[in-house]
């Protein structure tokens, strides 16, 4: 049996449930909205480690019976009905339940897509860049600095070679990638408060690769926008998505990166240059794959639930 954990109406979760039903894969759903009525009991077996049950409305699962778990949990602080926590008060029952759940997911046996602890690597793009390089990808020339003079020198260096510079968040906080313009020069002094990430813009075709186990599903994105996720806003036209095939070496590098980051299900952002060089920007630990699947028909949800069930690779 597999467990699907998240908000069942959220698109990636809904598609996973539908794929499990369509493929005859036994599954249980932990509806995170029911957290207040759920219980996770763990018992330490002195030889086998933690065992236990997860129970709640319509749910009574022996954790040892699970072959795999799809984890797409919302931050419990933002669940409906959860009040903002007082930082000086003891942890709420909501927080305690979710902490226990995360602790267990970090050590649960079987196929976990993905463990909460492993998902944290996405908190820092330069941290992930170390793994990206080890996997064999190129990473864009980057400067992280709080020094305006260094930033201007980097911009001048890139512009002298005909390339623009973009800036974006260092952390996993979602930011809209922006091109560095003259207007930014005037406010560059603000970076003294906090280092900012500047990157030489890599020209080419955006590709999103979803890795599940050792399978890759690649989607190419056609867009004139600096950040295709905001294509309508930045270029006035929506991005176009289609299935593409990548060289074996690139697929292998994607699987390698997934392994290095301990993210068996991940969405990897690539850009291939006109010269055929593959640059990697980041690996998303809990990808919203449904956006890509709905545009291309790539059977990502099917591959995910089959992998969790131990069917295939």
């Amino acid at each position, binding site marked *: 049996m597999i467990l699907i954990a998240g908000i069942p109406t959220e698109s990636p979760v809904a598609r996973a449930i539908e794929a499990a039903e369509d493929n005859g894969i036994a599954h249980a759903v932990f509806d995170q909205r029911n957290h207040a009525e759920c219980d996770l009991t763990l*018992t330490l*077996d002195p030889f086998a480690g933690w065992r236990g049950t997860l129970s709640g409305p319509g749910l009574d699962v022996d954790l040892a019976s699970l072959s795999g778990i799809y984890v797409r949990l919302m931050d419990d602080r933002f669940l409906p009905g959860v009040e903002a926590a007082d930082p000086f008060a003891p942890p709420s029952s909501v927080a305690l339940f979710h902490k226990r759940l995360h602790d267990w997911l*970090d050590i649960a046996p079987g196929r976990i897509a993905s463990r909460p602890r492993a998902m*944290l690597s996405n908190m820092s793009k330069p941290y992930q*860049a170390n793994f990206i390089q080890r996997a064999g990808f190129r990473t864009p020339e980057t*400067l992280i600095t709080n020094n305006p003079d*260094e930033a201007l020198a980097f911009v001048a260096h890139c512009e002298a070679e005909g390339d623009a510079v973009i800036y974006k968040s*260092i952390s996993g906080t979602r930011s809209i990638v922006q091109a560095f313009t003259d207007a930014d020069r005037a406010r560059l002094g603000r970076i003294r*408060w906090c280092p900012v990430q500047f990157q030489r813009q890599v020209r080419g075709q955006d590709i999103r690769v979803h890795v599940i186990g050792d399978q890759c599903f690649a989607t190419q994105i056609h867009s004139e926008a600096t950040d295709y996720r905001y294509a309508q806003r930045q270029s006035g036209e929506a991005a176009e998505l289609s299935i593409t095939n990548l060289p074996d070496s690139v697929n292998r590098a994607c699987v390698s990166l997934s392994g290095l980051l301990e993210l068996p299900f991940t969405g990897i952002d690539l850009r291939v240059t006109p010269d055929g060089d593959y640059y990697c920007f980041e690996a998303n630990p809990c990808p919203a794959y449904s956006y890509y699947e709905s545009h291309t028909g790539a059977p990502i949800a099917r591959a995910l639930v089959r992998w969790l069930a131990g069917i295939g690779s």
Partner: protein
Amino acid sequence: MILIIAEPFDMAALWLHTRIAESGGIPAKVVTPAQLSYALSITQYLGSPHDGIAFRLANEETIHMRDVAAVINRIVTVPQAHINQAPEADRNYASSEIHAFMLGWLGALPCPVFNPPSPESLSGPWHSDIAALNFAVLAGFACTPATLGTGEGLKPFAADTASVDTHFVLDGQVIGALLDASARDAMIQFAQLWGARLVQIDSCVREGRRHFVTASSMADYRRGGALLVRAILKAIQL
């Protein structure tokens, strides 16, 4: 130079600094997380031939990480008093950015680091009590059966402080009092599961079996004494 990044009240780090200085080898320098966080200039280049990290501190001293032979990393939190007055949304964003930067450059260091950072902790892997106990069981330590309902905390193993043994596992080598083969193997296995180059493991023997008590990536070097200092310097290959 060995760079020790530690708070000024981190007695274990200061002790290690003194022992390294006494060894007469390469010099060691202590910098605080605040000195790094409030540096006048921070530059980190990635993906280019100029790859590297440099901090120009408030006293105008510049630390180029290419000149650093090893790092003793004891950063627990990154001081951020300079953004305290910012509006909440900006403060939260900047705080995430500063943490992400610290995680990134510490993880990119080409020299030996004890310990490299982990996404959940800048000073190296950190695991919950539940995970630590799971690793201990899998590694072969004796553990007391326990049952936890939602909201119940794990009671720490009730060990008499005087009977607790402290060992360190550094790159697969056990440092501390002599152990039988099975206990030594358990220590090594535990350290692998824990995932840090240097792990402190506290255990005790009860009814003839070695029980796991606790573990940490933030070693108290003083408990390891000269043996641990020598092992660290050897691991750094100095």
